[in-house]
Structure formats: C-alpha cells, structure tokens
C-alpha cells in the first residue's frame, strides 16, 4: 500500500502531450494512479522537471562480449574504482562498468529501463546471469538472429512461416525481446574470414543475400506481432561511403511497412552515415540520411553518438572490428559463435584532433538535429562504442545548445570544422523533445506500453531533475542543465525512491527482466526438428541450450500471439 505524491513539478510527458505543465503525479503500489490519500508520502517537486524514467534502447551492458571486454581491459577499470557502501556493492567503471555499478550509475542518471541489444543465443544464460546482477533497472535482451543457420536456410528456401516458427522458439529459448540483426550475411561469411560488401552479395555456402535476410526477418517480425520492430545494424558499418548501403537497406524495406508504422529500427546510425570514398575524403552523409527519414515513416533510428574519450568498441560485427584492428593495431578480440553469430572488441580513443573522429562526432548530432520529427530518432552512444553511458548528459547538452556545440567544435581538427554542418544548424532541442529522444520515443518504438510516460497505469518509474524550465534558458545555461541530468534529484523505480541527489538510497529493487513469450499456432513440429538437428548444428545438447525460467531473478514474460 505504498503511496507517493510528487507535487507541483514541471511535467514533460510527450506520450500524453504534457509539455511542462505544473502537475502532481500520484503513485500507488508501483503504478501511476489518478490520486492518492492525504497520508501519502510527498515529494515537493516545485521548480523541478519531472519525466518518466529514462528508457535506453541500445546499450551493451551484459553478456559474454561485455564481460570479455571487462576482463581484457583492466586499464579501463583502474582509473574508476567504486567503493562498497553499507547499501551498495563495490565495483569498477569506466567504459565497461561491472554489473552492480552499471545499475547504480544508470539509476543516478534517471534511467529505469535499459535494452541490452546483442546476445549470442548460445550465450543467453550468461547475459541473464549478468542482468540478474544489475539492480535498479528493468532490462531486456535482443538475441542475434540475422546469421543464424536456421534463418539463412529457411529464408533461402523462401519459407518465411517456418522461419517465423523458429524465431518464436528462439525468443522463448533465449528469453529474448526483439530480433537483432547485425551485418546480415557478413557474420556467417566471417566464419571463414570473409565479409559481404553490399546487400546483394551472396553469403558463401548459403545462397542468400543480406537484402533477403532483412526483408525476410521484417516479415517474420510482422507475422509474430512482436512489440518492437527488427533492430538492425546495417552492412558496411564503419566503411567510408556506406551511407549508400544504408539508404539501399531502408529502400529495400519500404514496401513491407503497413499503416504508416515503422518496420525497422536502424541502430547507431552515425556509424552508417559516412560519405566519401576513403578516409581522406571522409565526410558526413547526415544530409542524405535525414532527408530520406524526413520523407519516410517506416524507419526509426538511434544516434550512436561519439564522445571524445578512451572507450571500448564492441559489436557482433566481427569483420568490422577486425578492420578497426588493422587501422589502430590495438589489442583485438574476436569471438565467433557456432551456428549463430560473431563478435569483436577493440579499445578505441576518439580524439578531437583526429579529423575523422571529429567528423563522426558531428555526424551524430547533425542527424538528430536535421530529422524534423523527434519521434524518429533517439539518443544513444551505442554504449560503450561511441562512449560510456555516463556521457549522456554531455550529449543532451550538445543537442539542446548551439553554444555547447560551438564550444566543442572549435577545439576539433580544422578539417572537421570546415566539413561540419553544425554551424549551419541553429536548432536546439527543447526539454519536451529531449524527453522524446530519451524515454517517450524509445518506449513507443520498443512497444513498452507502461514505460516512457506518466499516464495512469504506467509503471511508476520517474526521474526528477533540478531544472526549472521557467527560469532556465537551457540553451544558454547548458552547463547547469548538463549537471542536472548528471544526477537526478530523485529517481523512482516501481514507486520506490532509489536514488537521491546522486546517491543510491534504496538497493532492494533488482529490476525485472522482460521477454516475449511468443506463441505460434504450431509449436510442436519445431521441437522435434530441433532435437534432430541439434547435435549436428551445435556442440551443446538440446536440453541444455534454453534459458530455464528460474534463471531470471525477476522475470516478466510478455505473452504474444503470433499469426502463424
């Protein structure tokens, strides 16, 4: 019967059209309600900004890849040690924080839900074990399916329904939330050290092209009624001139969209918006990409913003990470997963005086500012690829303030200053728009009906920031606003105050792990076929592969009925 009343704050709730109104938010038993009794505990939010808890659509926080990164970068942790307190566990940061620290830091930033966007299905148990140790946030994982042999074989045959049944099985087996696709076709090719270079290249040994994989899985997604769209990391990521591949991919999906709703989410678009034939002629294609998005409604994007720091790149895009190795000669990890996917990790430092890095920094912001509809683009750094999630307030400052952008741009390499489109962009995002980019828009695209907003019935996940929109010019006073976003005055999770002024005050909330329990009309056939092929395809027995229910500390199964 815990009741809480947040009084008199400036509420920004774009899903319900609330733009800075002074409102009370009432909470009871972990949900937003109409009103509460006068005996309810109150928070005086006068002069403060109130938003729903942040919903991060793409951040690598748990699983085999993240942990391998942690192990091989002790130098990343030594500069960021976190002491144990009476309420919280010890740990380390910086770009690859340990699990407890990840939860605490996200909570202090006002985030309450984070999507872990890449898990190899065979390693799903590992991801869930780590997620169990990330407190104070709700989470979900996306299994990597774009190069899974069953997907390649079924789509090559043209049997989309059979593919859909396999995907449904996979969602239940890995306790996953959405279909993740990375460099489709490229990862299977990488099994023998090769890659694909266009969406119509043939994948060796499988008679299928990336175009067919992406289209097939988009159809599967629709058939299964999954809450999110396919989550796609395009081919040729990180290659100069790759914007053409990105546009081709987006065009390839145009005819599959229905009802003006998105059919795909393209992640960390910055890395996929490079123009120029080589690193010398490297320039931004933000113009081309944003023009396309402004004229089409079937794709959503997240930024993948670069920040200037020593961070760690990690993706399932094995060949791309190898390319980064050839460029930087830094220590490099490659990990291929039988039958399924691949991965690579390499430390990377983005420098202002490196022309390419500086242009990359500019690209992410250009795209976010040139896309007119804020419901189509979300703020991420593809943590830790573009920078650690603790840099989010910095990114918000750049988005809301031209002055902030100028201050950084003038320290960048001269070439980047010349090529950047930012001087010609005056747009400064408002608090309302920032709320869309960090919670409302992401929750909507993810299909999380009870998150990202403060309407009655929503989960009581709230963030309160020390920003008074009436007295603060957020564009001019971006430093104050950045500091405010750096640590919430209050973060409330499931109706409990968990963080206050940058400190964790309640560590009893482990957070839920959400997954889609997809039911198809004919499941049995899949199980029999799986059992037969299991020993041929994997080195693990059929019985030992799935993530058992008891693995998730606090599971939240979302029942979904597919139409196959």
């Amino acid at each position, binding site marked *: 019967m815990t009741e809480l009343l947040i009084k008199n704050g400036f509420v920004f709730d774009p899903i319900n059209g609330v733009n800075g109104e002074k409102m009370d938010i009432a909470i009871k038993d972990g949900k937003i309600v109409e009103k509460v009794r006068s005996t309810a505990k109150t928070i005086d939010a006068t002069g403060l900004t109130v938003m729903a808890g942040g919903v991060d659509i793409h951040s690598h926080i748990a699983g085999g890849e993240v942990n391998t990164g942690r192990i091989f970068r002790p130098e990343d942790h030594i500069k960021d040690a976190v002491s144990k307190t009476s309420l919280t566990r*010890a740990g380390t940061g910086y770009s690859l924080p340990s699990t407890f620290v990840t939860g605490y830091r996200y909570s202090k930033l006002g985030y309450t839900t984070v999507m872990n966007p890449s898990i190899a299905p065979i390693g799903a148990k590992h991801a869930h074990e780590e997620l169990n140790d990330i407190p104070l946030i709700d989470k979900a994982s996306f299994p990597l399916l774009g190069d899974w042999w069953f997907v390649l074989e079924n789509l090559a045959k043209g049997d989309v329904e059979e593919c859909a049944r396999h995907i449904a099985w996979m969602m239940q087996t890995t306790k996953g939330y959405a279909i993740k696709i990375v460099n489709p076709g490229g990862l299977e090719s990488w099994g023998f050290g090769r890659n694909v270079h266009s969406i119509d290249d043939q994948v060796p040994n499988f008679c299928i092209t990336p175009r067919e994989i992406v289209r097939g899985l988009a159809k599967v997604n629709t058939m299964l009624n999954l809450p999110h769209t396919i989550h796609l990391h395009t081919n040729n990521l990180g290659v100069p001139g790759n914007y053409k591949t990105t546009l081709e991919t987006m065009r390839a999906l145009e005819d599959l969209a229905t009802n003006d709703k998105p059919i795909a989410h393209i992640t960390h678009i910055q890395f996929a918006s490079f123009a120029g034939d080589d690193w010398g002629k490297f320039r931004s294609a933000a113009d081309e990409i944003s023009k396309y998005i402004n004229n089409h409604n079937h794709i959503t994007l997240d930024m993948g913003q670069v920040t200037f720091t020593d961070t760690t790149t990690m993706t399932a895009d094995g060949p791309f990470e190898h390319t980064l190795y050839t460029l930087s000669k830094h220590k490099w*990890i490659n990990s291929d997963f039988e039958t399924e996917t691949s991965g690579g990790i390499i430390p990377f430092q983005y420098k202002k005086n490196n022309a390419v890095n500086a242009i990359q920094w500019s690209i992410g912001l250009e795209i976010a500012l040139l896309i007119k509809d804020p419901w189509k683009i979300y703020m991420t750094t593809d943590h830790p690829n573009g920078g650690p999630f603790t840099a989010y307030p910095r990114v918000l400052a750049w988005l809301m303030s031209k002055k902030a952008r100028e201050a950084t741009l003038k320290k960048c390499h001269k070439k980047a200053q010349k090529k950047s489109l930012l001087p010609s962009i005056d747009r400064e995002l408002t608090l309302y728009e920032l709320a869309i980019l960090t919670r409302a828009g992401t929750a909507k695209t993810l299909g999380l009906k009870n998150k990202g907003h403060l309407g009655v019935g929503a989960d009581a996940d709230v963030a309160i920031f020390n920003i008074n929109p009436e007295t603060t010019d957020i564009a001019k006073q971006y430093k104050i606003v950045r500091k405010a976003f750096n640590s919430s005055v209050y973060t409330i999770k499931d109706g409990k105050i968990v963080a206050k002024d940058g400190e964790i005050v309640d560590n009893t909330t482990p957070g839920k792990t959400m997954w889609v329990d997809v039911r198809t009309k004919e499941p049995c056939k899949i199980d029999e076929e799986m059992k037969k092929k299991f020993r041929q395809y994997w080195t693990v027995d059929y019985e030992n592969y799935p993530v058992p229910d008891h693995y998730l500390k606090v599971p939240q199964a979302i029942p979904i009925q597919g139409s196959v």
Partner: protein
Amino acid sequence: MSVIKSVTCPICGCLCDDIELTVENNEVTKVKNGCAVCESKFIGYRSEHRIKTPLIRKDGKLVPVSMKEAIHKAAEILANANYPVLYGWSSTSCEAQRLGVELAEEVGGVMDNTAVVCHGPSILGEQEAGIPTGTLGQNRHRADLIIYWGCDPWSAHPRHLERYTSFAEGRFEKSEWQSYLKKLKAQAGQKKVESTTRRLSAGVQIPRPQACSLGGMPPSLSKRGRKLIVIDVRKTMSAEMADFFIQVEPNKDYELVQALRALVQDQELDVDKVAGIPIETLRELADALVNCELGVIFFGMGLTQSTGKFRNIEVAISLVRDLNMRTKFLILPMRGHFNVTGANTVTAWQSGYPYGVDFSMGYPRYNPGETTCMEILLREENDATLVIAADPAANFPKKAVQNMVKHPLIVIDPHMNATAILGDVVIPSAFVGIEVEGSAYRMDHVPLPLKKVVEPPEGIISDLEILTKILEEVKAIKAQKTETNQPPAEAKPKAKTETKKKPKSVKKTKKKKEAA
C-alpha cells in the same frame, strides 16, 4: 531405476553435456558416453575420503562438530581477519562463486581462483594482445588445421578431439576418424613386417625405407580434410595421433612462435634451427598455417608455465592475429577445471577483474604478483585463508603452504584432501554436478547447466548454502562489533558515498575531463 540424459560432466573444461547416467537407489551405476575420467568420478565420488561431518581443530586434532559451530567459527575467523584470502572456486558452481565475491567484499579480503597457477598467464596475455577466438563448435564445423601446443588432450581432455576437433563431424569439415584408423592399421602392419623381417634376416640389419624428406612435412599434411599437428617437448599420446609432431626444445616456445610470426609475414630467417627444429620444417609449417581454411591453436601449461609464461601466450596470440591477415585462425586455452572459466567470468562481471581481486581497501584492486594468492602466501601477508573447491596444499610451493597453515585455515570440500588435512575448520560439501545443480562455463565461455542426479549424503549441503550461512554470520558478527562501540581505528573505513578513486596522473585527469 532411472536413466538421465544430457548430463553435464563436472570434471574438465570440455564440459561434455551428452553424458547418460543410470541411477539406482540414489547411486550412479552406469555411465554412457563419458571418458574414463568422467566414469570414475560419477561412479567413484562416494569414496572413503568423503568428509562426513564438519570438523574443527581442537588441541591439535580435527574433531566432529555441528554445522552451526563450524559456520560460526569460520565466520569469526573471517570477520576478525585483516587480510583474509579466499581461494579456489574452480570446481564449484557459478552461484557459489557469486557468493564468494560478496563474501570477499564483505570481509575486505582477496578473491582469487586457481587460474593463478594455471591459465592466469593466458589471461595476462589476453590483456596485452586481445585474442582471436571462437566457440568450440566453430572449430568442429570449419577447422581443417588443428594444432595442440603444450597440451595433451588425450590425457587431460580425453573427448576433446572426438567432440570438437579432428574426430568430430562438422558442416564443412568431416571427421578424420577413418583416416586415423587407417594410419593405425598401417602402423600395425608395418610393425608386423619389421618383426618378421628381423626374424627371417637372423639379426642382419636391413635399413628401413625412408620417406623422402628434406626435414620437411610429411605428405599427410597436404591432404584434404582435417590435419592435426601436436607441438610439445616430448612425444605424448596426443602426438601419436597427430599427422605431424613437432618436438620443441624445452623453454624455447617463445622463440618458435616468433620465428613462425616472421615466416608467416614473409620474412627471411638467417638461422638453421629455431628451438631445435630445422628451418625448412618451420617454413613448411608456416605454409600450412597460411594455406588452411580455418586453423586453430589449442594451448596448455606447456606455454603458460614454461619460460616466458604470459609472454608466450602474448606472442602466440599475436601469431594468430598475424595469421588472420591472411586466412582465418583462432586460438583457445585448454582450461582445466570444469568451472575455472566460470570463476573468472563471475569475478569479472561483479568486480571488473578476473582473479586476484583485493577488496581490502573497500574497492576492487587487481595487480597479479601482488594481489594473487601464491604471492600473498609467500610474503606471509594474509592472516586467514578460506580454501574452497581446490587443493593448494597439494600443488603450491612448500613455503606457501607452510605460511598458509601458520594462520587459521578454513576448508570447504567434499573430500579430505591435502588442504583439508591441514585445516582448522573443515566443512564438507556436496558435489556440484552430481548432488547439487548449478551453472558452469565451458572452456570457450559457453554457459551450461549442471544437473543434480542423486541426493547428497545425510547432513551434507552445497557450497552455496555453506557460503550463504557464513556470510550471514559474518554480517551478524560485524554488526555486533560496531554495536559494542569498538574504537574507530579497528573498523575498516566504510565510505558513506561512492568515491571515485582519484586518478594517479594528471594525464588521466585530463582524459576524464571532457571540455564542453
């Protein structure tokens, strides 16, 4: 009687999960699919060496006590110690390992596992050079060149070849089992011919026909299909199975790797031999490395514990990295204990570091050589030790063991092993993977479930339960201590707020501050 399928074997890093057990009257009576070691464990784990009750050393002798008393004594020792070391962890479940990190953090001790005497150098090598690797199935499907370097799978990982490499069926590569059988037949035939010839020739020495060789590779290395090379200081049983055995001089693996790196990058070498191997052989080996579809190196103690240690691993990884510029190559460590990978994995996700984690300052510190168990014992810096799921008394240097027993020693283990015999508090536990379920990580980081197939003996509980009880008791003891108003100097400083460790150099401060 019941037959349980898909059981994961809790012995070595292979973590074979296709074992079939027949269980009758709470005993395993039959083991199917397992190797000899697997069978001996499942059938023989109920030996007379099982500890039957908790024990505490009183007046020099270990006497039976209640679980409550043993737990309390153990908790007391840890709570009152200034610098306890919690060591072992490699033969228990991830669930127990998680508790271990929490306990080490709570008592301000050191969390260390057996990697420190085994593949610790591999982790250090990885931290220097990264690692191009993949799951075992990648090798099964694609590898046509398999190299075992400084390890002997025939003895230590018996089913490795049949499940994951030369004798396994993959999508793109077939098993070489038939070819091996033919070779055995040919060898047997050759022996018969030789012995017959010896009898008939009445002692006259007839020269054996020599295969034409310029010190180069045997023809079997240019065949289609999987090729197996073993590199070791002596001819092991694994080497007998290989298509080619390369005998490297002891402690010269580093030179050999670097020579191969040069050759693989088309550099000329101005010597006749490296590490005792003729240069022509090395040139052909380099050719074989570069011309495969997918090659893999599996390595063991031969590289991690010989001269060079982690530098050997660093350059082996670099060799594989260089090879990836020309073909596809992977490298994997042959992890020994069935869940040492788990110990590293769990410790890393909770603290950031894989082993040798020192919590005495309230935050995790990692400095192998300083914060690792062996060195702490040799310097006699610890004042209490907890050993679980390992047997350091049997394999640590004498000085370290002597120092270990100078201070209170808590041992948690199913067996009365060498360490338990020296313990001050000995708590018997159940076997993970037989009497207790849990999760574990295979040598290639694939997580697998361990089953409970029989009930543990009366009164014997799991590592997880024991550790949970000790942790609770430790917290209670410490709470009492603060209540009875101990002088502040005694208690370890507990920071109320999260304190970021101040960066040691100005350079680092600059990096952290990003200008607006």
